[in-house]
Every structure is written in structure tokens, then in C-alpha cells.
């Protein structure tokens, strides 16, 4: 641990050498919180805090993956039949959209660290646009599910649907309903996290627009980036598990 070189917070009058005083013109760097000794400690703390928060998110989705694993092994036939009704092309496009958004996020973090204002703003905007594209495609998919009565609940219908690989054998509607219950909860929760991600990036965009991020202080962009990449990783797993259960002819 880099303990030794840490010093007690500087008395208010003395600023960190080479530190451009930000817009507020206060004595020391405005972003350095009072209880941190110095910038590096605050950045490390924020980064570790976000990683631990991502650990809670992994366990949060983990409960759903556990339910998915158990019901997939129990009702594989119905799961493959129900998975086949999902639009593979839309799912694949969404995965590509999220991967591109991860690229723009990483470029935004790079831009913040190298004081490239236009590149930062451009990539932030691109990320937000890609986020909305993802939600748009998701809305199209959900709408199609509503029309086909595949939404679990009283209106659910899944009669005479063949089980792939077993012509003439029909999927049990109640077991298929469990698949769609899991599908809606998992993708719904992921979409909710996507909406929160877009909110964070809109806030980052406004802060970047006001020029708050400098090569010395860009932790929020980094933290927002970590969160976005995590949401992308969750989709990287959701896509094959939900869409690609049994696609061979």
C-alpha cells in the first residue's frame, strides 16, 4: 500500500503545485474533499468504491442467473422453444450497439485524461445516443412480445409451439411462461441499469461541457465508464443465455 508518501491534508492556503485553479477559484483544488490527504488517495478510494459496488451488482444479477440456470436444466425443451421465438437479429444488433458504446466510453475516458475537450464531448454524446438506440431496439422487442401474447400473466399464450429438434412435440405453456418471466425480469433489470447509465452520462456531459474535467481531476468519467462497461458485460452474458439456447436447424 502506498502509505508512507501520504501526507496530512495541506493547510487551506497552500495549493497542489502545478494545479490549475478550477472555475470556483477556491484556495485548493475544489474537488479534493476535506478528509482526503491528497488527490491520488481520493481517486483510489472512488475507484475501489465503484469496484465494490459492481461486486454487489454482480451478486444482484447473480440471483437471477442462479434461477435461470436451474430452470434451464429443468425445462430445457421449453426454454429452447421459447428462446427461438426471440428476434435473434435484434439481439445481435443490440450486443453490437453496446460493444460500440463501450468503445466510445473508453475513448471518452482517454479524452478526459488527455484534456481533449471535443473528443470527450463527442464520445459522451455518442455513448448516450447508442444507449438510446439500445433501449429503442429493446422497446421494439418488448412490443413484439406483447403482440404475440408472450408476456407472462393472464394473457400468456404459448399453444402448439414445436420443441426444436422434436417435431410434433409441443412445449408446455406453463414452463415456457417461466422462461419469459426470467427473460422479462433479466432484460428489464438490465434496461433499468441502462437508463441509470444514460442518466449518469448526461450528467457527465453537462459537467464536461462546463469544463470541470482536467487531466488531474477526471474521476467521475472513469467511474461512469466502469459502471457502463459493467452493464455491457451483463448484456454480453444475457445475449447468448437468452437468445442462443438452441438456434441450430
Amino acid at each position, binding site marked *: 500500500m502506498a502509505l508512507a508518501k501520504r501526507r496530512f491534508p495541506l493547510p487551506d492556503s497552500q495549493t497542489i503545485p502545478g494545479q490549475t485553479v478550477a472555475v470556483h477559484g477556491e484556495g485548493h483544488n475544489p474537488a479534493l474533499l476535506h478528509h482526503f490527504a491528497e488527490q491520488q488517495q481520493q481517486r483510489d478510494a472512488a475507484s475501489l468504491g465503484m469496484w465494490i459496488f459492481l461486486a454487489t451488482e*454482480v*451478486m444482484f444479477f447473480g440471483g437471477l442467473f442462479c434461477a435461470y*440456470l436451474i430452470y434451464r436444466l429443468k425445462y430445457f425443451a421449453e426454454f429452447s422453444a421459447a428462446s427461438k421465438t426471440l428476434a435473434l437479429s435484434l439481439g445481435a444488433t443490440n450486443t453490437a450497439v453496446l460493444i460500440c458504446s463501450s468503445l466510445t466510453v473508453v*475513448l471518452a475516458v482517454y479524452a478526459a485524461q488527455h484534456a481533449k475537450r471535443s473528443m470527450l464531448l463527442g464520445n459522451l454524446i455518442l455513448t448516450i445516443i447508442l444507449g438510446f438506440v439500445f433501449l429503442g431496439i429493446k422497446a421494439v422487442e418488448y412490443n413484439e412480445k406483447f403482440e404475440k401474447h408472450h408476456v407472462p400473466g393472464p394473457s400468456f399464450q404459448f399453444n402448439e409451439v414445436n420443441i426444436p429438434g422434436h417435431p410434433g412435440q409441443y412445449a408446455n405453456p406453463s414452463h415456457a411462461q417461466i422462461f419469459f418471466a426470467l427473460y422479462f425480469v433479466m432484460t428489464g433489470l438490465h434496461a433499468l441499469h441502462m437508463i441509470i447509465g444514460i442518466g449518469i452520462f448526461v450528467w457527465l456531459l453537462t459537467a464536461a461541457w462546463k469544463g470541470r474535467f482536467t487531466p488531474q481531476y477526471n474521476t467521475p468519467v472513469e467511474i461512469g465508464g466502469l459502471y457502463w462497461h459493467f452493464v455491457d458485460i451483463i448484456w454480453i452474458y444475457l*445475449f447468448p443465455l437468452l437468445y442462443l439456447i438452441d438456434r441450430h436447424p
Partner: protein
Amino acid sequence: MSEHSSSPLKTYVTIWLTLLAGTALTVYAATVDLGHFNAAVALTIASCKALLVALFFMHIRGASEKLVKLVVIATVFFLFILLALSMADYGTRAWS
């Protein structure tokens, strides 16, 4: 993060292309009938993609701190505990 951990743009783009290729690969792999291995193949491809995102895009590789790596590994371990020990029940229910 200090200077050295943000890789140049070239690395990002190559990682990005690899991820897209991975997506295409997993979609193709699903159309090939590998029996039980379909699930295993899909999961390995997804895990490779997730690892790429974590190592390069989330800067785990460049980070000096071993602590962040420890947090990630510990989380995956506890998720594995949840899945494995639940399967200890469901997997052996048919034996008795």
C-alpha cells in the same frame, strides 16, 4: 489513473473489433449443433469477451493495485459458490 494505464487508441480499436468478432462467432456457433457443448461454447465466448472488456476497457490490466483484481476474483468466486452449491441440490435430487 496515472499516465501509463490508458492504452493508446490502437489497442482500444483492436479490442473493440475482437469483441464484435466474438459476437459474430457466438451467433454462428449457436447455429451449429454441438449437443451439450453449445452451452459451454457460448459461455466460454461470453467469458472471453467479458474478460477483454474488464482487462482493457476497465483498465484492470494497467492498474498497479492488486486490490482491484482481488475484488473481481472474490466476486466471481462467491457467484460460483451460489451457482455450484445450488446445483449440489438440484443435480443430486434425481439420485435418491
